[in-house]
């Protein structure tokens, strides 16, 4: 347990740097409304659960993502992000110029 009352300057800088990097990266890679979203599972179970969840007929799937088990979708309900994250799937913005067109699955 870190005692924040006495943490050293070096520890403070390290933690702050990590948090800043995370937040800045999140600001870049989090999905934007109206843009395609890359659903990136971090585990096999998550990939399995993701495929089952995406193919429930409610989600518009644009294609397979650049990583195995990932998909590019067009979100319709913002409140579903919490369920995906709980499953172990990271919803990320999809850089089409960087990753190319989603492959038809």
């Amino acid at each position: 347990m870190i005692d924040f009352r006495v943490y050293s300057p070096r520890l403070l800088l390290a933690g702050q740097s990590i948090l800043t990097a995370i937040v800045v990266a999140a600001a870049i890679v989090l999905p934007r409304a109206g843009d395609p979203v890359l659903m990136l599972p971090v585990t096999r179970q998550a990939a399995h659960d993701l495929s089952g969840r995406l193919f429930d007929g409610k989600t518009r799937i644009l294609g397979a993502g650049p990583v195995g088990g990932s998909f590019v979708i067009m979100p319709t309900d913002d409140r579903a992000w919490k369920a995906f994250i709980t499953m172990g799937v990271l919803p990320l913005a999809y850089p089409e110029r960087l990753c190319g067109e989603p492959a038809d699955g």
Partner: protein
Amino acid sequence: MADPLPTIELDRIRARGVRLLASCSWGWIVLLGVVAATQHGVGIWLAPALAALVSLPTSVAVLRGRYDPAVRLALALSYTAYPAVAVLVLTGHAWQMDTHLYFLVALAAISLLYDVQAMRAAAVVMAVHHVLAWALMPDLAFEGSTNLFRLALHIGAVVAELTFLTMLVQRAKLMIVELAAARAASEAIAGAAQSHRAAAEAALDSAAKAEQRANSERCRREETEEVSRRREREHLIAIADAFETGITHLAQSLGAAAGALSQSAESLNGLAQETDIRADSVADVATQASEAARAVADHVAALSGVIADIDDRTGQQAEHARHARTASATGQQTVLSLIDRATQVEQFARTIGDLSIGTNLIAINASIEAARVGDAGKGFAVVAGEVKMLARQAQSESHKIEQLVALIRTGAAEAEDALKEAGIVLDGASGTADDMRDAMRSQRRDAEAARSRSTDLAATADALVEDTDALTGWAEATRRLSTEVRGAATSLSGDVSALLQSTRAFVAQLRAA
């Protein structure tokens, strides 16, 4: 990380900036939440959560009262995240990319920390953010054109702001340091002024106490002065009486003295006049004496010339006497020689007489013989007669010669005696001439001395005349002074009367006072 110019004031300002930025970070969080609530792109909780997450470490540290360089650097890093979150919050909004202007606002806010290192770190993070956005989401971040020059344009803006803000912060720090020094100096001056003020207050207290003492002392002194004034008045009246008496006596004495002085001045005037007359007489006598002395000197000089002439003539006479004595001695010697020659002539005459006697005898004998011979002897007898006659003549002549010699000897003896007496006389005359010459020389010296004394006497007489003239001047001055003294004595008598009247009036006023 250590600042080269650490001061208490700079630390205080930095602490204030840290607290301000930490407080504002929570304002960012609230603002982001409000904005997120109005949007539909991202969940309402996400943006405030990210902002709170990045603000948490620095907030805890600031709440602990820290504002050290690590806290400032962490706070600067956290401020780079808020604009990025703001861009995220406005996802899908037309103004989404306008919010990234707040990167510059955040960098300006970080300058309140007065920490260049923190500013540089924040700028680096901002640049990295732009690079990542350019690399990962180029269409999102740089809509329309994604070339490298556009990225450089954004990064250049950040670098330029960083440069100017760094200059501003550096100058502000220098000003703070100088202000701190000035403040320290002013505090020192204020401390000194405070101490001076305390000293002044103490001095004022002392002065007030001294004034109180002076007042009491003045009251006491006034009482004492009143007593002493009364005593002084009494004493003054006594002094006035004594003064009047003294002045009266003094005036009387001065009057008497003035009268005596006037009489003395008159006497002195008379003496001066008599002195003047006698000085004139003395001057006349001295003038006559001077002239007489000069005449004596001239006569003595003439006498000295005569004596010198006599001396010369006496010398010549002595010389002539010596020459005569020499001639007399020579004559005497000649007479003696004449006597010798006369003796020799007498001897010759005697010899001739003797020869004539013998010749006569021989002639007699020859006559006798011639007579015996007869006629044959007659001629011889004649010759013998002639020889006999010659012998007789020779005897007669020798006898005459002896007589002449006797006469010569007698004359020579008489001449010798006369010459001896003449030599004696001449010796006496020569000695007398020498004595006369010595006497003349002595008289000549005496005459010279007399002439010198006469000259000195004439000079003394001249000096006496001058002194007499000066005495006449002094006598005149004495007469004038005596006249003035007499006038002064008269004036003094008047002044004494006025003094007496003034003294009486003064004493009367003193008594009345």
